[in-house]
């Protein structure tokens, strides 16, 4: 057991650090939840990709560096420490790409991944529906067989950044007659600008316009955009949902950098009496999350998969993030009420953490049933 990185890992860290030092924009980009910010972040993705920093853990053939999970973690630590912009293509990179690596065809990988790596195609996740949130398998948007593909109809909602994104991936009911709700679902990709698609922005709590609902009216999707076998979509989607909650969605680097900034803020502000305790807990929590992730990455390298343990992760980081940003606002006092500061934007976004990627109540059910072996309850 050790925490030492190899010389090669350290060289990779140094290379990433100096690249970021030279390229990270001097002043923050506008919010990626706005049209202007979305464009600026797309351009940033292209800049990352030009020197192969956008998807370091992917194979080189698709624009990555084949860096492996440990170096991905190292890169993320450097990325956030450098104060680099948020990633506009996060859903594509953390959810769709792993799905295509595991279940896609060679043709799909060759077609989809390179433009994802450069930000030329930004992806939205179209899973949730007005009547299907936590009980996702009850979804009703349907796909009807047609010549050479499927016709999609129905409504999807809460789709992050879909107002400005290019394409989306989601589950559709293609066989209405199956005995169980999670059977007869098909996982596929579609164009957000295809005929029959209406995108209606929904303002989030922070008023930003990138969130959206999607109305689909007989939208044609060719067979080549079906991921895996038709009717088996649930299993495919779930096999990568662990990625969203687990390692890939929130790397420790983000929280380590935030905790350090909070520590600096605390040293320069006098806050309410108990803020020292909360700042210490933020520092400790970032370290705990880093080491927990190192352990998970080590198991992963040993060939283990990330199973229900990812639910421990998800509850931890989402609650941690709120505690951290809340402490910053308390330290800032009057200034903390201003809505256009970095800390307040982070705070408002952190409030969504316990809701998206499977609510924390659902994650606690998974922990209770699948990690602790408690009897399945009356929910």
């Amino acid at each position: 057991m050790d925490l030492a990185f190899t010389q090669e890992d350290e060289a990779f860290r140094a290379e990433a650090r100096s690249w970021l030092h030279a390229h990270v924009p001097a002043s923050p980009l506008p919010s990626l939840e706005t049209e202007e910010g979305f464009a600026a972040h797309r351009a940033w993705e292209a800049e990352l990709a030009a020197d192969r920093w956008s998807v370091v853990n992917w194979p080189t053939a698709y624009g990555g560096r084949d860096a492996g999970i440990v170096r991905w973690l190292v890169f993320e630590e450097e990325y956030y420490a450098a104060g680099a912009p948020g990633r506009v293509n996060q859903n594509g990179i953390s959810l769709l790409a792993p799905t295509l690596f595991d279940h896609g065809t060679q043709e799909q990988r060759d077609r989809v991944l390179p433009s994802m790596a450069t930000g030329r195609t930004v992806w939205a996740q179209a899973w949730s529906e007005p009547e299907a949130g936590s009980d996702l398998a009850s979804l009703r948007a349907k796909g009807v067989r047609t010549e050479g593909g499927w016709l999609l109809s129905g409504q999807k909602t809460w789709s992050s950044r879909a107002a400005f994104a290019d394409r989306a991936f989601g589950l559709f009911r293609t066989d209405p007659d199956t005995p169980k709700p999670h059977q007869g679902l098909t996982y596929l990709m579609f164009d957000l600008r295809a005929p029959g698609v209406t995108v209606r922005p929904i303002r989030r709590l922070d008023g930003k316009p990138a969130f959206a609902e999607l109305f689909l009216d007989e939208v044609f999707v060719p067979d080549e955009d079906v991921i895996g076998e038709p009717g088996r979509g649930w299993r495919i989607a779930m096999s990568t949902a662990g990625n969203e909650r687990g390692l890939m969605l929130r790397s420790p680097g983000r929280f380590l950098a935030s905790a350090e900034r909070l520590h600096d803020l605390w040293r320069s502000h006098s806050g309410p009496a108990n803020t020292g305790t909360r700042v210490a807990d933020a520092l400790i929590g970032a370290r705990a999350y880093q080491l927990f992730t190192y352990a998970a990455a080590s198991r992963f390298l040993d060939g283990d998969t990330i199973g229900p343990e990812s639910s421990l992760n998800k509850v931890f980081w989402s609650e941690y993030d709120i505690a951290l940003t809340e402490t910053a606002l308390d330290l800032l006092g009057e200034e903390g009420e201003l809505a256009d500061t970095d800390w307040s934007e982070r705070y408002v976004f952190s409030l969504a953490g316990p809701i998206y990627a499977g609510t924390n109540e659902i994650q606690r059910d998974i922990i209770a049933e699948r990690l602790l072996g408690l009897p399945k309850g009356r929910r």
Partner: protein
Amino acid sequence: MRFLLDAEQREFTASLDAMLTAADTPSVVRDWSRGDHASGRALWRRIAEAGVFALAVPEAYEGLGPRPVELALAFVELGRHAVPGPLVETVTATTLLASLDDAGPAKRLLPALVSGESAATVATGAYALDADMADVRLALSARPGPPLGELEDGGGESSPTRTPAELRLAPPPGPPRPSLDPGRRLFPVVPHGGELLATDPPLAPALLLARLTTAAQALGVGLALLDRTVAYVKQRTQFGVPIGSFQAVGHQLADAKIALEFARPLLLGAALTMTAEDVAAAKVTACEAAYRTARTALQLHGAIGYTAECDLSLWLTKARALRTAWGNPDECRDTVLSGGRRW
């Protein structure tokens, strides 16, 4: 970077676990809390045979140490099985003795501590844990001296006067004061009595190890509380179903699981780096996780959990005691805050 236990470490913990499971520790604790140490001493020797005390002792004194990772693993098991006695204090004492300039005390006292023939306690404050059972009673106290103002170098704020500490072998104790944890017996320390071993000994390495092993013991206590409670809620039925099928019950246990699982890597990470910040972070996190788990365990057991007859009590009270032993949560957080950028 390979932050995973190796096969040898896993085997070591498994064999310790098996030995302690066979030892019926609950009845050992009950004897111990009555001041009857016979079964406890027998168990003590088996723990020594398993090599636990040798892990803190340098090779120069025929030990295997210091091996903080293995010590942490061992103390998780000792906590899981609620083993009573001055366990942390013994490894702390061995570290302290081994780090003295004068090798005499170490040569004289360490072999018996490694073999388990004797046990040690260390008091840094008013009480010494299990001082009646410990053969080696170390006491640390500020050296009596002239009042601060009369010291020549005690002037300006920039040069705060340090009071040198004295390390003594303390005389036999008087009667104990009851602890919240009946398995821990606290004896008031007689100030400045006994043989002087050293003046101003290097304390930091020993105190760090005390904190680390207390954190490990607390994590073990928390893990045992969670395991026992999970088992209980699966078999206790109310309203015609196991209480573990109620979401309000499951979610509390999920939270306990999260807290404990995030304390574990902090503990092992601290054992690897042994920096003051990492060890303090591990201590506060493991102790808080164990303490919260204790509250949950008691609540979910209902009234049976509130009885001294129920074995659960052996872990419940220890979670409270370990929370303040060797650095309370605020002291540990202060250490974390005073550190620079290490992570």
